[in-house]
């Protein structure tokens, strides 16, 4: 009898508390979102998403990764006569971190010279986006994409020089 009264009053007070104090019923919702704000921002507002004319002489195209690995990045740069990158565009098949890494890469190469762009390291990209260790390979792929685009541009410039030389001779 005594025990019943105690438990019933306990339950009554618990339910009253629940009614008045909404926060008691809902658990603490500062749950860690898996995606960092910056990564989500790059996805929602991608910088420089698109394509440049890949047949143009002053455009270098880098295509890295493989669909079987779940990550493919295409990065294109447009370089003016002074060797400065004036435009960059990207397209990515990959997770949120991969999209953010390539988007950030295009942001950083714009305005740099061809030599300076080579200095961009994957660790800088990872630090800027606060990538967790399991996503570091996305930043490495972005660095590879930059290098591939620059090397493609170099090859095109080489071909141009050879053609000019041949035309002269």
């Amino acid at each position, binding site marked *: 009898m005594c025990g019943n009264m105690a*438990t019933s009053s306990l339950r009554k007070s618990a339910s009253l508390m629940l009614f008045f104090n909404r926060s008691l019923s809902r658990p603490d919702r500062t749950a860690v979102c898996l995606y960092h704000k910056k*990564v989500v921002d790059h996805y929602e507002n991608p910088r420089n998403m698109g394509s440049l004319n890949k047949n143009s002489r002053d455009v270098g195209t880098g295509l890295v*990764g493989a669909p079987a690995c*779940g990550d493919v990045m*295409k990065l294109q740069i447009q370089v003016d006569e002074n060797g400065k990158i004036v435009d960059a565009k990207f397209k*990515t098949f990959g997770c949120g971190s991969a999209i953010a890494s390539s988007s950030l890469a295009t942001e950083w190469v714009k305005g740099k010279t061809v030599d300076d762009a080579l200095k961009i390291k994957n660790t800088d990209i990872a630090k800027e986006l606060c990538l967790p260790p399991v996503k570091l390979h996305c930043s490495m792929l972005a660095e590879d994409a930059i290098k591939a685009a620059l090397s493609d541009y170099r090859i095109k410039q080489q071909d141009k020089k050879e053609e000019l030389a041949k035309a002269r001779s």
Partner: protein
Amino acid sequence: MLSTGSNVSSRLLKPALWLSVRLVSERTAAASPQQELIKKRELEKDELRPLYMDFQATTPMDPRVLDAMLPYQVNYYGNPHSRTHAYGWESETAMEVARKQVADLIRADPREIIFTSGATESNNMAIKGVARFYQSKKRHVITTQTEHKCVLDSCRILESEGFQITYLPVHKSGLLDLELLEASIRPDTSVVSVMMVNNEIGVMQPVKDIGHICRSKGVFFHTDAAQAVGKIPINVSDSKIDLMSISGHKIYGPKGVGALYVRRRPRVRLEPLQNGGGQERGLRSGTVPTPLAVGIGAACSIAQKEMEYDHQRVSMLANRLVQRIMSEIPDVIMNGDPEQRYPGCVNLSFAYVEGESLLMALKDVALSSGSACTSASLEPSYVLRAIGADEDLAHSSIRFGIGRFTTEEEVDYTAEKCIHQVRRLREMSPLWEMVQEGIDLKSIKWTQH
């Protein structure tokens, strides 16, 4: 207990204010089309939690189950194995009622049901227990490549103990090849384990035929029915099932409880994993958690009553979702057999779009993906690989789970959002661009990383 006067009124006011704000915003967007609904949800996204569309991962507890469990948490809290007083007797009665409820759902005898801590423990008990009991004469176990990790890992442990395991491949549809199964059974096979409904692709195996084959060869048949119990009709005698694993939290019951069906005629012997006071026929010692047992019993009895209605409703919603998505966007593949499946588990691969980026895009819907990026090991789902899905499609798969509490609105919203985001992500995808230009992706030599 409670403070009086102004404190009470201010505390009363807060929830009332919150309610009124909600009502006003709902009224202003009352008669608007789907796009308006999406915009409204975007604005309120700090208030609301994502839509739940992951019913294969777990299910919310049915309120009726909670009602059944609560008295056993605070009032009737006795140990069901206490023989000497009323607290024990009333708990034991409740436990036995729950046992009968679970047994009735699968057309078994209540004495054949053992309460465990979940389907993982049941699977471990069944496979390791049976294999170890008969190990002097039988050292071979057969399973499939699409089983749940707990089954595959138990088999791996048995392998390290010297057993031989055959992992049978499956067809592209996800179904098992029955002739291959029959050919693989050897005189020294002790148990065959094939899951009834796959948790990733929803494929339903031909359990009756498999049961007949196993019975004719004198081999025990274990099935992991965690995703099937309470959703499709099961009869353990018709299907000649000897062992079956049941999970509480997949059928709107509590988490932390499950059951194992162990046939009595013909008797299945197994070596217990957990030793102690000999509870549960000596097969699983330990105090049976009465509230959890009552919960799984209540969940099973509700499921039995509502199975047909739920099945019709879930089929209707799943068809609605798939029709909407597939009619609006091209290059979407449904993984798994289209006919032999449980409709509530829809696994779609969106070509040229990566799974994790789509999950991030659909951030106000709770979904799951078979992509590598979502698993800690960066490997895509082994189930998708077993059914022969192309590697890049395995990275592009999303699993939609539909259940008892899913509404039409939720399905429509998910379909709309999915269509919109897939289009957006395809715009961002170099693979889509190449396909539009007419390039055959399989002909390209990709750089290895």
